[in-house]
């Protein structure tokens, strides 16, 4: 009897909870876009609402509260962003605050699910398809972002999903070849510009096996993470990629892709390249900083890490070597997205524009090593960061780091497979077959 009462109580509570939340959801639906019809429906509604909203100038944002969520990379970056946001608040009268989140993905997911998202938030290009597909992001309204044609096309592309542009990039990074000029000079090695030169340089610069390198008594020619986020650049250099440009079909099972994978895997198998974990380093930058590697393939985040952790380490940046087909690299970028449910879309877009227009993007990037996403600003940035020019050069041919929703499963097959190839317990053919099968499952091809 008591047991039954308890069960009834549980069900009753569950019902109340469900109804309560349902009611909440209904009110947000009424206030916002029609969401039940799917993404396109929601997107058009929001876009429609956006076109009717005229960009107003002056103190029209007086007292509007805006929250900006992101993750925190360093205190210096937090301070710089806080300053920009404060400046925006001062000029417009809005009350905008930057609120960095620990465990960003988890915090953002909870906020989106509860229907109370921050007005503006960081969106990594890898996460964009997930968020856009879920209808969590508002597309860029016409005229909300000033001079959009100035933004590097590859970066706009990175935040375009299903033909809709969702958000302007905050900044970007590309992969380059970072090397120790002293070590290269001492060994009489020129900075490699082709695959053959890279292999030869790595061979000459390698002075011992992995155990000796881990122990700090030898050096590897090259250290690079065994993952698509690095190896992919070599695929591009050979005219290959994991999927076609439209992300509709897998293209890993081609002679070009196989050749590129064999080339990179060969560097490891010959002992001229090591994965960071094999030499007790958390990532390639650490291996480089500790003097365990003479060259690494990393991006704009490496210089500040060197300054912070290995201030005595000398380094220089070159473009990645060109492959048989040409140059190739990845662009990693983050944008400022506006929530589809943002309470005040007009003010939110005003904040985004202030942070990403030419002035804003230059103010944001000039003190750091990440690059402005606008061509004009990038040119100016180069003059203050001449040593990092190679990263900017990569922007011309960089490919985006972003796929389709659920593609994490495919990389989850490819990356361990590549590790297996390096460890010698998988073959490249197996990896290509497994990854292609997994990808076809996700892409529906």
């Amino acid at each position, binding site marked *: 009897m*008591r047991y039954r009462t*308890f069960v009834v*109580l*549980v069900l009753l*509570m*569950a019902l109340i*909870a469900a109804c309560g*939340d*349902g009611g909440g*959801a209904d009110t*947000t*639906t009424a206030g916002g876009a029609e*969401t*039940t019809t799917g993404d396109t429906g929601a997107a058009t509604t929001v876009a429609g609402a956006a076109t009717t909203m005229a960009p107003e100038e002056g103190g029209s944002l007086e007292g509007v509260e805006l929250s900006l969520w992101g993750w925190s990379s360093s205190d210096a970056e937090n301070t710089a962003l806080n300053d920009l946001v404060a400046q925006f608040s001062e000029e417009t009268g809005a009350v905008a605050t930057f609120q960095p989140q620990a465990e960003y*993905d*988890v915090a953002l*997911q909870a906020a*989106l*699910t*509860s*229907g109370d998202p921050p007005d503006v938030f960081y969106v990594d290009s890898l*996460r964009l398809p*997930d*968020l856009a*597909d*879920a*209808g*969590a992001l508002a597309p860029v309204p016409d005229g909300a972002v000033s001079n959009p044609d100035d933004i590097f096309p590859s970066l706009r592309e990175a935040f375009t999903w299903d033909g809709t542009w969702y958000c302007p990039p905050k900044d970007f990074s590309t992969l380059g070849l970072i090397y120790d000029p002293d070590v290269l000079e001492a060994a009489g090695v020129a900075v490699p510009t082709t695959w053959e030169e890279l292999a030869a340089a790595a061979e000459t610069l390698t002075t011992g096996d*992995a*155990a000796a390198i*881990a*122990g*700090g008594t030898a050096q590897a020619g090259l250290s690079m993470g065994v993952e698509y986020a690095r190896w992919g650049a070599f695929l591009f250099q050979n005219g290959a990629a994991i999927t076609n440009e439209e992300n509709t079909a897998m293209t890993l099972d081609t002679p070009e892709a196989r050749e590129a994978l064999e080339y990179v895997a060969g560097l490891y198998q010959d002992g001229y390249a090591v*994965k960071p*974990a*094999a*030499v*007790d380093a958390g990532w390639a930058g650490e291996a480089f900083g500790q003097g365990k590697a003479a060259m690494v393939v990393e991006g704009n985040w490496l210089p500040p890490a060197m300054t912070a952790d290995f201030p005595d380490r000398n380094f220089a940046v070159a473009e990645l070597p060109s492959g048989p087909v040409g140059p190739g690299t990845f662009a990693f970028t983050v944008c400022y997205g506006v929530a589809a449910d943002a309470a005040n879309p007009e003010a939110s877009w005003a904040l985004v524009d202030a942070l990403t227009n030419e002035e804003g993007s230059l103010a944001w990037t000039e003190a750091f090593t990440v690059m402005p996403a606008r061509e004009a600003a990038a040119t100016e940035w180069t003059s203050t960061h001449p040593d990092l020019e190679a990263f900017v050069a990569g922007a011309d041919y960089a490919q985006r780091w972003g796929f389709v*929703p*659920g593609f*994490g*499963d*495919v990389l*989850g*097959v490819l990356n*361990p*497979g590549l*590790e*297996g190839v390096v*460890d010698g*317990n998988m073959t490249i053919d197996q990896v290509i077959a497994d990854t292609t099968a*997994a990808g076809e*499952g*996700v892409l529906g091809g």
Partner: protein
Amino acid sequence: MTADTPLIVEAAPRAETFTVKRGMRLKGGSSLGWLFSAPALIGLLVFVAIPIVATAWVSLRDWSGLVSPFETEYVGFEKYNELLFADGVRRTDFALSIRNNFYYVLFVVPIQTTLAFVLAVILNNKFLKGKGFFRTSYYFPSITSSIAVTLIFVFLFQTSGAINAILPFETINWLDNANGLFHNVLGVIGIEDPPVWMVENEFMGVTFWQWIAGPSVAMFAIILLVSWTSIGTFMLIFLAGLQSIPESVEEAAKVDGASTFQTFRHVIVPLMKPTIFFVLTIGIISTWQVFDQIYATNFGGPQKTTITPAFLIYFQSFRNSQASLAAAIAVLLLVVIMVFTFTQRRLIKSTGDV
């Protein structure tokens, strides 16, 4: 159990006529009982019962985790189908996570239970000096943050770390080593190449040869770490159990002529059975939920040999925007834990009364 019954019978009539000081008379003890247990019950309901029901509900929908779950589509058992029957990455991942975690449980539970019991017996010796010191030092790892302990172990186990410096073998790559322990053992006794049928046949997308791989060397390092950490907690529980055994029982055994080992084997161990049962149950449940150590050492790598169901839940939910899939894994994990706990209960019961 029978000893408790009279107490309840006796208590019930009293409660019927329970009089509150202010003169308010309460009819029936049951409503008063509900009232007193309400805070705990509401807590259970809000933080346990409803989340469980919600998880099961979410697992039947197609929810990315990025919008309100009430706006999602009902897809029935599709997520379960993806995890258990449909050919693909998700089934393979799930199968690997079950394999990895099974070997993990297989090693950690016996190691931690046995060592904790032995330590507790030693510490229960009345002639031992400095008990407080030993108790504290064995318990210390258990109360330290698991992430902090894990990071220290990562340093100890790295190629140039202290473990390799102490061990008299050639340098072992512990943490970045995907080779299965059983495969390594088979290799040592001369079986390098797997039998063809084990490679050609598979179950849930994983070949039989991979199923019998054993924990990878990286997972084995985590097994050692967790065993070391959790021994303290269980030692304390065993110690409490041992101290509740009256001295007279041991003395009686001695008078009857039992040796120390016989006393231990035939008196202490049977009397400790409820405690052993408790420790095993808690041990099995917690080892099937291992997450912190996995996250902090290798994030599931190398080559997925340290992914576990709990890790997959996190990964699918927060990194791959597949919250419904994660919920389905959580429900399946619950089933796995229940199966193991009941089996273990059955086994213990069949060897005598609990």
